[in-house]
């Protein structure tokens, strides 16, 4: 029942617009100040879209040392919406100069011609990153479309105190994880070992990567889409069984209810990524010091694979008039030792730079009971396998949410949801004219 109020709001907006038009003075908006004409007169001014916490503090350090290149942080809400917003801004012709781009969204940015090729500007720093991460910003092509900032290798976060209380050993394989899930249900009918979230395609993607999935690949001049491959089906069937049996809950991650369960000890584990301490410290403050980490359970005993959930790079807009300056800042931010230290300390990220990863010392405060946090993370990271993301991840991820929502609701098989994702992705790529190899 908001239509009439919306009308009123529009009327106010109109009046405001007219008023500012009629005043005869250009509005002193930030956009106006950052236009290329303004840049020609004074120092280069760059706008940087990011959602990493405290990024403004880090940028302040840069601005003090570089009076000729001034960067302004524009704080964004993270996630898939941020990517959509950037694509829309880019299409509308006024994107920021720099943008934090999650690895899975980078291909859509490249396909939309929204990010600049930084091959020349980054030749010197290529060696600072592992080959796997570097591949994520090149897609295996000649171009370089971003500078890796952080990565999100997945680990198992679990409640050490409750595992001890219920006599559960840390699961080494997914089989053991399933058994542990059943044990938890027996010991405390109100608690669950974990939950399957139909809202977080990123988490599922990471688990599929761990199992060896390759959803997209490029062969010659065409794309291969293989979302419904064997490893992915294996992962889907596994969680399907646990959810239908009632051994695992199906409430989505990051809801108020989920937070409460984490805080109250009603959820005993979370297969998540290295950035989880930030989430846990905000959402489950009561459980501080009670969580511990372990490598993800494996499909076959003795293996040590992991996948990636999230992780992002800094990309430069294809439309910026100040590409060189933007590339210079992005390089500093992700390779300079002082900047990296700030990134870890202030923004609480797991840096992409290999050197910075090995220099990590003290565990995150929430995990003060786990002094070897970063060493474990490094081990996990070494065994993490990612894959090339496709040019329409937005479609795939949205299809995941809808299809898995439906599967949970109607108790239909998860493997059918996987097939829906595959079909939706291929149909969308066909419609846009991408060359697809069958």
């Amino acid at each position: 029942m908001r239509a009439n109020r919306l009308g009123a709001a529009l009327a106010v907006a109109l009046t405001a617009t007219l008023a500012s038009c009629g005043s005869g003075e250009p509005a002193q908006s930030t956009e106006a100040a950052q236009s290329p004409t303004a840049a020609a007169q004074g120092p280069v001014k760059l706008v940087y879209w990011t959602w990493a916490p405290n990024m403004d503090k880090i940028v302040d350090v840069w601005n003090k040392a570089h009076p000729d290149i001034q960067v302004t942080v524009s704080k964004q809400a993270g996630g898939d919406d941020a990517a959509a917003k950037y694509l829309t801004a880019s299409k509308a012709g006024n994107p920021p100069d720099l943008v934090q781009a999650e690895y899975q969204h980078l291909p859509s940015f490249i396909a939309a011609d929204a990010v600049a090729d930084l091959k020349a500007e980054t030749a010197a720093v290529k060696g600072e990153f592992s080959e796997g991460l570097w591949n994520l910003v090149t897609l295996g092509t000649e171009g370089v479309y971003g500078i890796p900032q952080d990565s999100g290798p997945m680990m198992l976060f679990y409640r050490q105190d409750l595992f001890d209380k219920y006599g559960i050993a840390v699961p080494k394989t997914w089989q053991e994880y399933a058994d542990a899930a059943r044990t938890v249900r027996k010991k405390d009918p109100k608690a669950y070992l974990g939950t399957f979230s139909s809202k977080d395609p990123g988490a599922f993607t990471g688990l599929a990567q761990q199992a060896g999935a390759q959803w997209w690949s490029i062969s010659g001049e065409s794309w291969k889409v293989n979302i419904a491959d064997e490893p992915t089906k294996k992962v889907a069937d596994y969680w399907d069984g646990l959810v239908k049996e009632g051994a695992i809950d199906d409430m989505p991650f990051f809801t108020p209810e989920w937070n409460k369960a984490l805080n109250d000890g009603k959820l005993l584990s979370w297969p998540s990524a290295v950035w989880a301490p930030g989430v846990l410290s905000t959402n489950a403050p009561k459980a501080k010091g009670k969580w511990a980490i372990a490598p993800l359970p494996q499909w076959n005993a003795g293996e040590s694979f992991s996948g990636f959930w999230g992780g992002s790079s800094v990309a430069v807009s294809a439309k910026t008039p100040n590409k060189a300056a933007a590339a210079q800042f992005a390089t500093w931010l992700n390779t300079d030792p002082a900047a990296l230290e700030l990134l870890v300390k202030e923004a609480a990220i797991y840096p992409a730079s290999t050197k910075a990863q090995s220099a990590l010392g003290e565990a995150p405060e929430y995990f003060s009971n786990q002094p070897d946090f970063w060493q474990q993370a490094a081990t996990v990271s070494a065994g993490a396998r990612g894959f090339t993301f496709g040019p329409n991840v937005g479609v795939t991820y949205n299809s995941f949410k809808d299809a898995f929502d439906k599967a949970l609701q109607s108790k239909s098989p998860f493997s059918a949801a996987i097939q829906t994702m595959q079909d939706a992705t291929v149909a969308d790529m066909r419609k846009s004219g991408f060359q697809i190899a069958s």
Partner: protein
Amino acid sequence: MKRSAPYVFLTPAIVLFTLFLAVPIGYTVYLAMLRSKVSGLGLGKGSRREVFVGFDNFAAALSDAELWNGWLRVLGYGALVLVVMLGLALLFALLLDSARVRLARFSRIAIFLPYAVPGVAATLLWGFLYLPSLSPIREILDVDFLGATTVTYSMANVAVWGGVGFNMLVLYTTLRAIPRDLYEAARLDGASEFQIAIRVKIPILVPAIILTTVFSIIATIQVFTEPTTLRPLTNTISSTWSPLMKVYRDAFVTGDLYSAAATSIVIAAISLVLSFGFLRVVRNRAFGEG
């Protein structure tokens, strides 16, 4: 000079209309006839261009089963909201207008107050009440408010809670404008308060009821806030639950502005047909025209 005066007065309206209505609508129609085409891998410069596809996007929107499912869901939801909300609004207006009610001013404000709460805030608030482990209601009532069958009612509840006050105020204001001697005459004829309400007040209210119904039909077709805000909390609301949500998804999640433009034009056309259709049906009662 005198001749030009009317045009001078009209100019602001025409300029506003052109800038903020005609041009955007024209641009939307234009966008709806395009599609983005890539070649080969679709990576790198110049691999993506816009091509003209005529009415293809409209055809796709009209033949999209998911969009029609959305309409069905909104129809069910809308019927529920319209009947309950307008029924309650009418009931409250009549109660407040009756001579014997106490605390009328307080009740009026209390019923109207939810309308002042922004839709997103209201939905979040209700969302917390619906969530099993956070809700005080759930401790008493063992109902899954966000289940596949119940979620429509839960959403309708939010809309009703927010909308009753506004509609009640419209009806109540109309009631206050009725000359009191009409009631007196009815009473002299031996009519009870209930009979006065049914035989005198409601017939006089009909135009106002029609007005609130048209407003409510338009608002219901555009339902977006409630399902979008509740969606992260449950797995029973899809990204295309209502037609407008599908437009949002196409434009901003999957990046297909062209389909979104076509679908939004289809929605606008259906809204026009529904609201004008309703007005046509009730024209006699509303305006006393033949």
